[in-house]
């Protein structure tokens, strides 16, 4: 397991994992900052979260699912996407531009609904959340496109840059900064024009969200299922390693695991009406992988699984990462097969989004 080739695959998987965690934290930090009322020093009670939900708008052929979609009271609507590693190739950059324009139309639809219905907001903006190191590239490209007439959003548009920023010895912050354009509401535009540090401690204490709309790394999801979901599906008494001769046996279904994941770790924590993500189908694929690792079996055709719960060598995350590194062809650059694991609804364009992020 420790040949140099597998190690490089392993290192890449670790990197992917960290990047995903960072992205979740960046997104939460931005959501938190936008929901935060500086005058009362509390979270606003009138925020509607629609992150990852399907949004239709005139001019858009299909529904889109923005990573960030929120309404602050009845006045401000913010729709945005996360592109942590803002694309490096023109082709992908063009697709980001097209996507942002789609989101801009969603904002327009919120502001001036076609039918007689009430506008959902009076001000709106589109946001691109990217990494601090990519903010200049993103701004230069979009500015160039704007001048070339290929990127002309009707509403306000802003680039928000995020970066993890250690301070002092072990203090960890996420710094948010509006690096380009205009944000709504105006007070947030002014505030984020300077760097806003958000403490990681505070985010973790406040939000249990562990994934956003994009497909999480396989090992990350498996770790979450193995460590946090499966043990709760069997009584405490079935553990007792010193007393019970047998390992806990856990019988469950993909639907049950998916329900726990959604209710406890997804953006649904912010709004229970959000779409069901991850889907049962994708969780079923993840459970199949666990069966493939010989940690359990599939019972018949009715979709039930039975797992023999145990402590995995080196900790579950390490175990899954190594397993994953071992099945990937050593030495080759790991390509993300679209068939690899359809953990999320493929229609939700999360796969193509991830490909963009990865460029």
């Amino acid at each position, binding site marked *: 397991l420790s040949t140099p080739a597998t190690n490089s695959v392993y290192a890449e998987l670790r990197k992917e994992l960290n990047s995903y965690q960072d992205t979740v934290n960046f997104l939460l930090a931005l959501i938190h900052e936008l929901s935060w009322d500086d005058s009362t020093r509390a979270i606003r009670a009138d925020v509607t979260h629609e992150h990852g939900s399907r949004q239709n708008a005139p001019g858009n052929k299909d529904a889109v699912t923005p990573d960030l979609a929120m309404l602050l009271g009845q006045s401000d609507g913010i729709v945005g996407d996360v592109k942590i590693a803002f694309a490096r190739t023109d082709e992908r950059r063009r697709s980001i531009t097209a996507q942002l324009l789609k989101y801009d139309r969603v904002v327009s639809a919120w502001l001036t609904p076609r039918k007689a219905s009430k506008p959902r907001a009076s001000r709106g903006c589109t946001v691109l959340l990217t990494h601090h190191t990519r903010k200049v590239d993103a701004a230069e490209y979009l500015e160039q496109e704007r001048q070339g007439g290929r990127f002309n959003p009707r509403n306000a548009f802003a680039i928000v840059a995020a970066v993890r920023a*250690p301070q002092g010895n*072990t203090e960890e912050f996420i710094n948010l900064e509006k690096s380009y354009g205009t944000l709504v509401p105006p007070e947030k535009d002014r505030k984020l024009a300077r760097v806003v540090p958000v403490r990681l*401690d505070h985010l973790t204490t406040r939000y249990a969200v562990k994934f956003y709309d994009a497909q999480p790394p396989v090992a990350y999801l498996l770790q979450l299922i193995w*460590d946090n979901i499966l043990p709760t599906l069997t009584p405490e008494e079935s553990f007792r390693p010193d007393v019970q001769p047998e390992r806990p046996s856990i019988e469950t279904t993909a639907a049950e695991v998916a329900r726990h994941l959604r209710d406890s770790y997804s953006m649904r924590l912010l709004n229970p009406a959000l779409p069901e993500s991850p889907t049962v189908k994708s969780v079923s694929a993840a459970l199949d992988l666990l069966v493939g690792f010989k940690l359990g079996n599939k019972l018949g055709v009715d979709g039930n699984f039975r797992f023999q719960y145990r402590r995995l060598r080196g900790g579950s995350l390490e175990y899954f990462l190594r397993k994953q590194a071992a099945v990937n062809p050593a030495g080759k650059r790991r390509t993300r097969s679209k068939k690899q694991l359809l953990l999320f609804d493929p229609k939700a364009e999360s796969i193509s989004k991830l490909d963009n992020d990865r460029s």
Partner: protein
Amino acid sequence: VDELPQDVLATIAGALSPSREDAEVAGALDRVQLPEPFRVYVAILLLRRDPHLSIEKVPQTIAHIRRQDASVATVLYEARWNEPTIRGASALLRITTLAGGDAATLMTVTTGPVWRHGLEKAFAWLYPTVYAPFLRQPDLRSVFESMQRALRSPLRIRLTRVSSLRRLLHTPSRRRYESGLTWTDVDAEEAFADAAESSTYFRSLAFDLCDVQGKGRFVSTDIVGKVSRDAYFSSNARIAWLYNTAVVAALARVRKEQEIARNRGRLAAKGPEPRAILARFDTGSLQRQDLPRIAERLRRMPSASVSILHGNPYLHAAIVDMKDGSAFDLLVASEKQLLIVPQLRATEPSVVRICRYVYDQVGEAEFVDASHELGLR
């Protein structure tokens, strides 16, 4: 216990009557001076789901416990290996469930070996129905302060033997602790002050009561005892004093910490927010260069599966307690605090176990409710 003089035995049997309050029992035992090697032991136990404490369930291979009535039982412990001196030793056991049903005090007359090998093992077996609280260094200090306060001059508490552990977090040594057993004759106050300077915590402290005579000469009164951080106390005389000071002070601390451990699991709490616990360190205890060592120590936690989700420059670990399937995230993203974030299941015994492990391995911490502390609620 059969070796005890008849009159002493009669007093003890009478005192342990189930209808009495703990303090009354202690009062009735106060005048008894037990011969070596006997001691009265008082322990604080935390209970879960079983307010009546089914001690009879303990396998006889560990200790033979026979219940006499609702609260008194007999313990028979036979050493299985070559320890002939303790074969056949037995103890009278009195257990009182406290109000609320989630804690109990236990009183018994026994010898050190029976306590250590029989009773302590029996309670370890009963985990998580019964779990031991732990007294932090400041708790132990306040225990000794209350003991000393109740003494009339010229009596003073002298520490005779101190079992301590020094955390070696900031040194590159592979060892996690430096354990120490010292035979001292220092004053309790002095010992606590010394320990605070070297990241040392006490596991148990044996003391004797001394008469301070002219020129500061300490003369033992032959009243000896022991205080352990596992919240048990023993003495060969003056039980009422020990109970009313040490046990009462410790009980108050333990109940406060137990409150912190309650309702942490998110499945039970039904709320979307994590109910995090914050371990607050007095001084800058967590340096960045310590993070790999903290991660390494977490990995070695017994009966737990630990995954490091992020190692540097902040530490994020996921811990599953293999004793009951509780799960926690642990986050070090600040110099002076460490967050313990309970996941779907987080039982009280498990929360205490994690806190204790963090306390032992990482540093002198106080455990508080995080959202309250960070001003989020």
